[in-house]
């Protein structure tokens, strides 16, 4: 087991280095932060730009800059934003909870919708409730999430003035972004719940339960759902990682003060340290989730441990 853990951690470390290396390299191809910083200055000269680059440490070779970043990373120092020098750690410290809160709220919406709908579809397989749920989820899958977000804002904020169109100022602020993300996720999850449920309903113990004369709801929610929860939880867990990546667009539309907005603005301003920091933290989160899932498998299934 220790050997298995060691290899998985080594793999995770390799992935982290690879991701940060690619991101650090790629963003440096997209332009010069010194120019962005001085964009209002008509009369900026090459000598001025060189001076600013030196102050930002951009005159060093790429590998030196990257190694400095790695060194900082392992000592817990993510550097400072090019835009005003705020420590990147502080910015992420503020943004991460906002992103996680939104991600959890979205997952909650999705689970609360997809389980009853998926179960209903499975039970009424082939009949009209199943057809309706499947068609609606297909429509949901085809929505671009930013479009749905803008439609919600138009309807609930501008037309009816019920909810704040952007920002994070209380529970009302969560409704639209969490609903947008949640509804898009639900579209996929309903299908998953339906399929898993259908398989479970074919099992012999379900037949036994019914033969015992148990009521439909007890059979469904106590026996069947409990047994399909294992693959579902695994899937939802992995989905959470993917969700963190997809949240960038939603955060921007709702001006949510999370990692997505931070990353988006950092790209626009060529703020290398902030972008590197955000990508590192997101990668760490996703790698940890995958690692936890893998380790959990390892515990359950001895075959995984050996491979």
């Amino acid at each position: 087991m220790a050997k298995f853990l060691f290899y998985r951690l080594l793999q995770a470390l390799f992935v982290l280095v690879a991701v940060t290396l690619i991101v650090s390299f790629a963003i440096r191809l997209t332009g010069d932060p010194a120019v962005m910083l001085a964009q209002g200055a008509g009369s900026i000269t090459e000598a001025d730009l060189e001076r600013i680059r030196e102050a930002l440490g951009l005159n060093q070779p790429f590998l030196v800059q990257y190694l400095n970043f790695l060194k900082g990373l392992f000592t817990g120092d993510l550097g400072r934003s090019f835009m005003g020098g705020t420590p990147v750690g502080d910015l992420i410290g503020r943004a991460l909870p906002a992103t996680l809160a939104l991600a959890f709220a979205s997952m909650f919406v999705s689970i609360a919708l997809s389980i009853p709908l998926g179960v209903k579809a499975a039970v009424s397989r082939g009949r009209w409730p199943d057809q309706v749920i499947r068609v609606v989820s297909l429509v949901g899958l085809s929505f671009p999430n930013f479009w749905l977000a803008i439609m919600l804002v138009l309807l609930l904020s501008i037309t009816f003035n019920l909810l704040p169109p952007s920002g994070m100022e209380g529970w009302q602020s969560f409704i639209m972004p969490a609903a947008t993300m949640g509804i898009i996720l639900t579209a996929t999850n309903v299908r998953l719940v339906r399929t898993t449920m259908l398989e479970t309903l074919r099992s012999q113990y379900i037949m036994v339960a019914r033969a015992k004369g148990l009521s439909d709801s007890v059979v469904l929610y106590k026996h069947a759902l409990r047994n399909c929860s294992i693959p579902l939880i695994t899937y939802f867990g992995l989905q959470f990682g993917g969700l963190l990546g997809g949240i960038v667009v939603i955060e921007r539309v709702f001006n949510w003060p999370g990692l997505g907005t931070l990353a988006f603005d950092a790209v626009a301003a060529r703020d290398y340290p902030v972008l590197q920091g955000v990508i590192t933290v997101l990668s760490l989160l996703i790698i940890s989730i995958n690692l936890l899932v893998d380790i959990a498998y390892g515990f359950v299934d001895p075959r995984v441990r050996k491979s």
Partner: protein
Amino acid sequence: MKKTTLFKACTLAVAMAAASASHAGSLTIASPQDPGSWDPIDTFLVNWASVGTNIFDGLTYRGPDLELVPGLATSWEELDDGKRIRFTLREGVVFHNGEPFDAEAVKFTFDRLLGDEGARGPQRSNYTAISHVTVVDDTTVDFFLYQPDPVLLTKLAAYGAMIVPPGYIEEHGEEYFDTHPVGTGPFKVVEYTPRSDVKLEAFAEHWGGAPKLDSVTYRFISEPSTAVAELQAGRVDIVLPPTVPIGMIDSINAHPNAEVVSVASPTVEALRFNTQSGITADERVRQAIIMAVDRQAIVDSILAGEGSVIASFQGEQSFGFDASLEPYPFDPQQAQALLTEAGVEPGTELQIDIRGNDATFAEVAQVVAAYLQGVGLNASIQPYETNVLLNDIIPAGRTGAMFQQKWGGWTFDFDNTAYLMYHSGERWNPYDSDATLDEMLDAQRSITDRAERETLLQFVARYTKERALEMPLYSLNALYGVGSRVENFEPAPDNRIRLTDVDVTE
């Protein structure tokens, strides 16, 4: 008994209403970007200036009318042939922390800007004419210059020349000052949450009188549709340029509680030519290309009228603008004749380089290409990532026959454009070298006589038009989204809205 209660309740209600009416309001402004630091010398972002102009004062002040008036200096005098300027300072002014403003604060500000701290930021390049500042007495300072700078007084009204408090910075340190700025301006910063918002409160002791508002919050919203939604929902009162896209003007104006207010801005657009090689090396071809395009039609249709056709690469507010200089007319026949004369074959291809993320300009470029098609030129449009175009393609002289140049200068002085676009060897001038232009551009930099300098700059404008160094397209308007509860709002061409007189109705 009941009546008495009712009466009391009514009195109380009236009293409360009166109290809230006499209580000045708060204003919320959407700004597209958090500059990250409020230190005047750290950035050169217009989004710094829109807030900074409320926190800080300079020795001079320039409001929305662009007239230069006294700020923290009450008067000034040019001495030694323009190489020394003596400022008399305003008395009784205090910083937000209670620290008095005096000659030492002015000296400290410029020592800092021209010293190590200033070397790390982009502001110093604006003030390189200044050699040093000396204190004459508490209310008098002398600025010693390496050479006269005709634009210096304007530059002292904004950005890096904002006066900062020496005692406060020495006590708290540079880093603290970045996020907890203190100035002498009409509003003081009470809370700053990076990437989210900055909250300002009226500074009643301001020398120009107390602001009418109690507080102002700037929220950083980068997505235009989000900022506009906040405006329409009544949660934001002003949306600062350049947020509002032209395509949203109608939907904002259609809303009962919001409107778009516009004013001519310093931003100008042109399609510049490769004057070194290819067909555009021929002056006649360049003139033909300009005449082939109906620029007024572009302003009317694509810009929804929010701009003006220009004859040279500057707007009407620019110092050096010449109202008598006419743009080339739209004349496809004359264009055709010039092309034939220059021996350009029908179907000749040329490439137009543009910024890929600029949707409005992409439309403009397409229309230009269509007009060029009309005189037999096959134009292709090459979009580049903005940074790539600005850093790699233009300075290296690797553009197509024509390339987009968007320009704007907060000083509203044609020097800031002309010198960088036309002087030999400048970053933005990869193709042309003209001894006459070099001479004129160098000469005007040391002339402090305004009339004489204006004549020279107007000559430069006329000369570049005759040589057809670019196709001047238009100057853009700055678009403000303004809520109906805002009063006394005057749009500033340069985003620097000072909120002293602005008020809100509840």
